[in-house]
């Protein structure tokens, strides 16, 4: 049986995590097809076709898909589903919104945020904010799976799959896209950044995050935050790293003024190297950090920023 990977995209480019989802699909086995549904999504379809391991790209053009309303895209995926044994998507906000709707319409379960493919019907997934790992086996004919992108090494480029145009399924007329308030940033996107600088309640104000911005810019890093910092209003919600925010696994994660609540650790403990800067030497963050400095972040961060400048 073939595997259908559903690609989130902005029309021009597919999200970086599509290559991770393709990697997961390749592990499942069988031909990998990628669905690019959109309105004027030709460039995104071409990009999907270049991901190694993709046998075919299905491009569905329909005005209804312009903004990825789950109600409309789910109907299309369900129409395609009978030809596939698995439907796979990255567990980002688009995948989390869409895939359970697809699963319910197919009357099958969804495996959420798989981190390992054990066999075509068996998956490992974190539960309890990553404090336990469950191995689950699906008994359904079609397996609907979202995968945590950071756990699958992105498939390479250089492929040249055929792009097949398929028709859209139209709009159900249930929902309308109004607009977005997307944070503009020159910094790398959190989930794909090689280095992430993250701040917590220890920063004490939104104003103080500027200090982290300077450090992040020196390092070419993405900027994140703990839930406490987001709840306190220091930074917008899309900065949040953690079980209910974003899951990141960069080469270097620098946690500044973050105590290390379980919820936060679940979102970053797969990082290659973790640095913690905190004044409380008992802070749980030090239990996962490779390198820790106990001290006043308002002194250490400028010092660190200056030291990196000198390199």
């Amino acid at each position: 049986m073939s595997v259908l990977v559903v690609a989130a995209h902005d029309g021009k480019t597919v999200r970086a995590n599509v290559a991770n989802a393709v990697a997961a699909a390749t592990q499942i086995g069988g031909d990998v097809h990628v669905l690019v549904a959109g309105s004027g999504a030709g460039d995104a379809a071409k990009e999907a076709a270049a991901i190694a391991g993709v046998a075919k790209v299905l491009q569905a053009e329909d005005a209804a898909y312009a903004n990825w309303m789950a109600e409309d895209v789910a109907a299309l995926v369900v129409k395609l589903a009978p030809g596939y044994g698995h439907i796979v998507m990255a567990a980002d906000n688009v995948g989390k919104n869409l895939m359970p709707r697809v699963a319910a319409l197919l009357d099958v379960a969804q495996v959420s945020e798989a981190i390992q493919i054990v066999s075509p019907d068996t998956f490992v997934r974190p539960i309890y904010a990553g404090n336990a790992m469950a191995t689950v086996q699906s008994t359904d004919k079609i397996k609907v799976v979202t995968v945590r992108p950071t756990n699958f090494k992105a498939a390479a480029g250089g492929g040249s799959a055929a792009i097949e145009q398929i028709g859209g399924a139209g709009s159900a007329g249930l929902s309308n896209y109004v607009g977005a308030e997307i944070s503009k940033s020159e910094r790398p996107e959190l989930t794909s950044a090689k280095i992430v600088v993250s701040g917590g309640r220890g920063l004490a104000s939104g104003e103080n995050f500027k200090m982290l911005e300077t450090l992040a810019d020196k390092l070419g890093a993405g900027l994140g935050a703990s839930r406490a910092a987001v709840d306190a209003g220091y930074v917008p919600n899309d900065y949040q790293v953690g079980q209910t925010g974003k899951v990141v696994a960069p080469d270097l994660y620098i946690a500044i003024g973050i105590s290390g609540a379980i919820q936060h650790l679940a979102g970053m403990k797969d990082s290659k190297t973790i640095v913690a800067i905190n004044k409380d030497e008992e802070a749980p963050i030090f239990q996962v950090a490779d390198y820790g400095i106990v001290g006043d972040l308002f002194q250490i961060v400028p010092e660190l920023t200056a030291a990196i400048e000198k390199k």
Partner: protein
Amino acid sequence: MKVLVAVKRVIDYNVKIRVKADKTGVETANVKMSMNPFDEIAVEEAIRMKEKGKATEVIAFSAGPAQCQETIRTALAMGADRGVHVLSDAELQPLAVAKLMKAVVDKEQPGLVIVGKQAIDDDSNQTGQMLAALLGWSQGTFANKLEIGEGVAVKREVDGGLENVMLKLPAVITTDLRLNEPRYASLPNIMKAKKKPIEQLTSEALGVDVAPRLKTLKVEEPPTRKAGIKVKTVAELVEKLKNEAGVI
């Protein structure tokens, strides 16, 4: 307009969970249980709608063992009007819960259903979307703000920031953390809640097949990360990052 909210009984978010030695699951005996935090936000939002005159009645739904009645009581103490409990000692997975909720929705005909975006035990993040699918309704997931008018305007938390959508009613909403701050139930309201009615149903009576579709083969501890070292100075840290870890 009636509003239906779903409340799940889960291990309290402050409890450090323990995996059972036989790897069959997580220890729940003698562990403090509470309402799923995202569901508290759902209950709060529904009660605020009623206080603003946008909702006429708030019904709290839960499915699971007899103790789920306590979770429903908590919702009633917060301000919900009555409860519906589907009694089941079987493992209920998201698709089964969505089907049970659909049966209750068919009966109660609410104009809006609000559920937490995910439960902090199985972290599935599925039930709301599945219910919307089964009902053929619109879905407003990860809601940060709701406004009820002709339809419902939902501000959603998405990867790059926020997104605004307009949904036709009836609709299913799933709550994100910043939708509101749930109230604590006052003692007089806790007393009053004891008199509010809870209807008890069963999956058999509702004609819903709740058999699990996913078999849990084992549950294990996650691999632990070893604590590293503490460095004294920034210079030492930079040296280690450069030469030992090789990440800068």
